[in-house]
């Protein structure tokens, strides 16, 4: 699948470049010949049925999953088995998970300052100031000294976003950030993501929130069976899908 869709990139600077990337789980071919170029400042939404490989794709970008063939370059660093490169990429790429994955034995503030202090070697005071800044941005500074178990799901996910932001990442990956949330809490997390997008963060989101895709995405990618089936700007993608598989998917998810 070549990267032929019309480009609506915000800048010419390439943030992520994926070329002919393939991945297998045992003998199962999960990702097939993925080609994708993400430009700095782009907001990309990846949609598709479950099992289509969308989560696996973004997990390959920060090496939580290993790819077996092809090339991934993140922010100018080639992703290989070299641990130094992997750690460098991971500290530049923030990730938000479906199940938040906050550290339950640490307070909210400690969750946010841990990586800056240990990975970036930021002084504790400075790290705490940064953390409070981002906690204010996700609108929960008053919970800083509580433990994750005391917060609601939506609050936990916003903390997870703040935790990633504390590392000052150039790129943010979202792996179904609202799928484990009650409907009432989805909005507060999406609002946080929208404001992040408005500030020009490079974002790749795997999500089923099509409203979010229409509102903030520059590009929507549709995946099925480990391949990119269609990609386009949101208006075109939703109003005028080209492939039959996309039409079927959209009719199922927007049909009620």
């Amino acid at each position, binding site marked *: 699948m070549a990267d032929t869709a019309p480009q609506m990139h915000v800048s010419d600077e390439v943030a992520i470049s994926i070329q002919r990337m393939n991945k297998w789980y045992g003998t199962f071919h999960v990702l097939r010949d993925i080609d994708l170029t993400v430009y700095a400042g782009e907001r990309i939404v990846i949609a598709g049925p479950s099992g289509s490989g969308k989560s696996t794709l973004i997990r390959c970008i920060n090496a939580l999953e290993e790819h077996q063939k092809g090339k991934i370059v993140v922010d100018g660093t080639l992703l290989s088995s070299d641990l130094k490169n992997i750690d*460098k990429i991971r500290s530049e790429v923030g*990730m938000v998970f479906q199940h938040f*994955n906050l*550290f339950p034995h640490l307070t909210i503030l400690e969750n946010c300052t841990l990586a800056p202090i*240990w990975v970036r070697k930021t002084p504790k005071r400075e790290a705490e100031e940064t953390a409070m800044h981002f906690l204010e941005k996700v609108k929960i500074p008053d919970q800083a000294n509580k433990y994750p178990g005391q917060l609601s799901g939506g609050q936990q996910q916003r903390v997870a976003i703040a935790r990633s932001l504390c590392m000052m990442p150039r790129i943010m990956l979202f792996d179904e950030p609202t799928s484990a949330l009650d409907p009432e809490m989805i909005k507060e997390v999406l609002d946080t993501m929208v404001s992040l997008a408005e500030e020009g963060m490079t974002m790749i989101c795997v999500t089923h929130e099509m409203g979010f895709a229409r509102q903030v995405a520059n590009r929507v990618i549709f995946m099925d069976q480990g391949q990119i089936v269609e990609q386009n700007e949101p208006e075109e993608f939703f109003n005028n899908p080209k492939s039959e598989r996309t039409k079927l998917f959209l009719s199922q998810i927007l049909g009620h």
Partner: protein
Amino acid sequence: MSDTHAQFAFVRSKMLPEAPPPASERGAAKWVRQNFFSSTINTVMTIFVFVVVIQIALTVVPWLANGVWSGSSLSDCREALAGETGACFAVLSERWNQLLFGFQYPSELYWRPLAAFLLLFVAIAPVLFQKYVPSKMLIFTALYPFIAFFLIWGGSLLTPVLALAGFVVGYFVYTKLVAQSFALGFFGGLFAALAFWILSGYLPVEGILAIEPVESREIGGFMLNLILGTVCVSLSIPFGIALALGRQSSMPIIKWICVVFIEFIRGVPLITLLFVANVVLAYFLPPGTNFDLILRVIIMITMFASAYIAEVIRGGLAALPRGQYEAANSLGLDYAQSMRLIILPQALKISIPGIVNVAVGLFKDTTLVSVISMFDLVGMIRGPISSSQEWNGVYWELFLAAGLLFFVTCYGISQYSQWLERELRTDHR
């Protein structure tokens, strides 16, 4: 349509206040009735248990109350009791020091192990109560093993100082080399420390800055159990963590070494390991080498306990969701950081009941050394005391005392672990 609707249309105009439960659901009478006499079977059981408890108390209480506390032999006790039932606690008052220190430890030096015992509490306080004791106290904790060794075994002050210096040399080499790679730093430090110890073994330290030396075979009684228990538990926890992490390792050689070690040690009874320490090792060592028996036993018990603790911690590691590893990785933490800051604090917290279980079991198992003719608390009772002419035939009183000593220690450990679990709870369920 509108008619049917009106039948169940309802709007609450006033919220109901909270009300107390009815009187019959409160009070002591209700508690007794509900817990002891709620049915015919329960009433019968209650009466039966009550009778049994009274019967036992009627036998035990006079035995305890009539107990004779002074006398120099069993016949003295019998004389004092004049045919009545009663315990002969005189054996405890007369042989108490032997039960605690063994029968060979010089009695004028009892203050030294006693001081070591009291200092133990100062040394473990910063480890057990991290939040409440200043962390500078950990310096004393690090020095404590050498102080305790010097107090209990005596001899030249240079022996523990050189041992400590070996650790310092090893650590110094480690910090110099670790920047290049962890393995180089680890093995470089280990090699440097070993080299230092072997070389310092040739120094003529005998008698320099010395206090009266005590030999290992002179150490016995409950003191021996405490030494073995404390040393082996505190060594086996770090070894157990290393084995558990090694067993999870993606490097096959490290993984298989750990698996084989754990499975082999767990598959062998402790008592056989102790026999190996006592007898078999001597065949493999060059003739004339003097390899301290207590040290050999410590190595064997530590290996045994490490294998068990490794499996307990492995359970804790397995209980953590994969997301914790992924979150730590995605933030850019390296392996050592994510283990130390994220994974182990949580895995160890889950493993506390299991670790304490092993520790308590291990502490009681130290009495097995009596089988390889070391005179620990049980060894003292079965050996020198029971076989003496004066106290031949006294069993209940001695084993009751031994049981109490162990119970107090183990109950303390168990209470501490429950407190720690509450202290570390952050889930607020």
